[in-house]
């Protein structure tokens, strides 16, 4: 039967108040609470559900980053994944890491692990790129079912209901495939105490991008990070003519 790779990303927790670093090179991450990207949680939940329904045999949780990401892999293991893979990336490489590098890593791992499905969150809540799933599918030349709100496996094909701007689109794609999880795909389970304990014993393999033949050089350079502009007070006007005049004066029209 089959194996599924699930990507889990360690991001700043959604409830944290984000602050920009004084040198404007990024946001403050030191000492800030991090947790698993919510869409990745949904991806893990879906993979574990598929395993419980016996469509797949093994779920492997993968994360790329420095040693702290093993916490995130452990959470995935506690939710029911069988083993983990930690691809070590740290320092400058980690700061410059983006969807292109991640998708190369996942493409290489999918081939190495002979996965039939790669399930990712639709996007990460820190960069909101929404690119990794799509790029991974392209690199592997596999079909993709993105923004999935319902996934049904039927033999060698997968029926995916996708949330799109116009409503819901249902597609049938053949395996192996890449899926990305959208919000309404499922409600992630709480890890149970026994599972958290069992997770301790599950294996997490270590490797480097070089082991997979992936070069981590980034084609994107972050120039500056700014806070959103503070909202200015509005100005009240008496008539429509005044409004038009003011808008013209400040160059809006």
């Amino acid at each position, binding site marked *: 039967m089959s194996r599924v790779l699930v990507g889990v990303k360690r991001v700043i927790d959604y*409830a944290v108040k984000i602050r920009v670093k004084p040198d404007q090179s990024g946001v403050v991450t030191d000492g800030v609470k991090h947790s698993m990207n919510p869409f990745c949680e949904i991806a893990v939940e879906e993979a574990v559900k598929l395993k419980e329904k016996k469509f797949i045999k093994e779920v492997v949780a993968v994360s790329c980053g420095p040693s702290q990401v093993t916490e995130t892999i452990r959470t995935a293991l*506690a939710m029911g994944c069988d083993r983990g893979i930690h691809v070590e990336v740290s320092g400058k490489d980690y700061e410059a890491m983006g969807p292109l590098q991640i998708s190369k890593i996942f493409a290489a791992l999918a081939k190495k692990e002979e996965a039939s499905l790669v399930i990712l969150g639709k996007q990460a809540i820190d960069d909101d790129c929404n690119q990794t799933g799509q790029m991974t599918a392209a690199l592997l030349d596999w079909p993709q079912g993105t923004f999935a709100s319902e996934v049904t496996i039927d033999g060698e094909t997968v029926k995916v209901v996708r949330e799109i701007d116009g409503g819901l689109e249902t597609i049938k794609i053949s395996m192996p495939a890449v899926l990305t999880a959208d919000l309404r795909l499922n409600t992630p389970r709480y890890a149970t105490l026994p599972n958290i304990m069992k997770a301790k014993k599950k294996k997490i393999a270590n490797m480097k991008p070089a082991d997979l033949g992936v070069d981590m050089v980034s084609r994107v350079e972050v120039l500056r990070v700014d806070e959103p502009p503070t909202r200015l007070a509005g100005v009240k006007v008496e008539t429509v003519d005044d409004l038009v005049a003011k808008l013209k004066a400040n160059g809006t029209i």
Partner: protein
Amino acid sequence: MVCLKGFWSFLPYSTVISLSYTTRLYSVCAMRDTILNSLLAAAHGLSDEQKEFQKMAFDFAAHEMSPHMAEWDEKEIFPVETMRKAAQLGFGGIYVQPEVGGSGLSRLDTSVIFEALSTGCVSTTAYISIHNMCNWMIDTFGNTEQREKFCPELCTMDKFASYCLTEPGSGSDAASLLTTAKLEGDHYILNGSKAFISGGGDTDVYIVMCRTGGKGPKGISCVVVEKDTPGLSFGKKEKKVGWNSQPTRAVILEDCHVPVTNRLGQEGQGFNIAMRGLNGDLPFVSMVCYLMAIYIFFSSRFYHLLVRKQFGEALSNNQFLQFKLAEMATKLVASRLLLREAAVALQESRSDAVSLCSMAKLFVTDECFNICNQALQMHGGYGYLKDYAVQQFVRDIRVHQILEGTNEVMRMIIARSLLSESG
């Protein structure tokens, strides 16, 4: 949801009351984040595994308990379904052995979990800790048949348990209890009554301390009485100031026949079993207080001191309040450290475990009540309204200075230990 964050500062104070569930959940999570990361970080010094437990318990508390806390209090609902959900996660027998369905964790692990759960609802978490205590008593002192009969269903919370020691005539002087258990053939006949029993009338398994022998602690045995045993009945449901999500009733035993096979341990061992149970629960009782205090502390900081303006400035600029906050924070950290130390001593079966637990209970319950009370004061008039959670925490915590050994009894225990060591 993210945009709602900035919303806080724009809302006039009165509309804070009518916030939707999602905003409240969001802000609870924001507070949880600060609680976990701040100076008072609840996550310091924990192993990775314990941090996982804590995170999971916080999430459960925020999503499954906190939204209903006020309703459970007002309507006096015993939240069976929510507790069973908690049991599915392993919260029914946290420190009970795995072979009978428990999670087999340590006392410290357990205290971390209860700490986090109590941010959702003090009263319910307190009941869960009592249930766990009873479960542990059967697991530790019961024989194989008793453990296999009772523990699995207690672990899943298919059945709930109550601890029956206090009587109308014996509270602090627990060893003077009068409920008798006369041996007749292969049954004990129980006669007497128990007072203030948490869960009484709604639970299934009652751990009753009764007198099988002579006067004093050595004449007390511990017997498990099951619901629907003829002769077991209950008093009216008590109306309490707080802890309203658990029913409290008198438990009445009138010629109640209980098989001898339901006795835990030996005759005369009952008092010891009862105290071991309570000692184990001490850290949790106080832990619950502690985390309430921390929660209230942050609630004051977030919602009130930084937002409320008087005399042209935010309250947080007022030096008196700053100092008050600093004192509260210091007491909170001291509480946490004392609690953790007591939990570790208990786990390691150290000789000072009992004294430490008593000190922890005494200090933490007193200090945390004061902190919650001061937080209420800081909220001014709003603190007195039931729309705000502060008052529920104050009401729910007040009882912790009384039950499971009054703070006066704690002083007795500590003094006795001090004076016996000297000389």
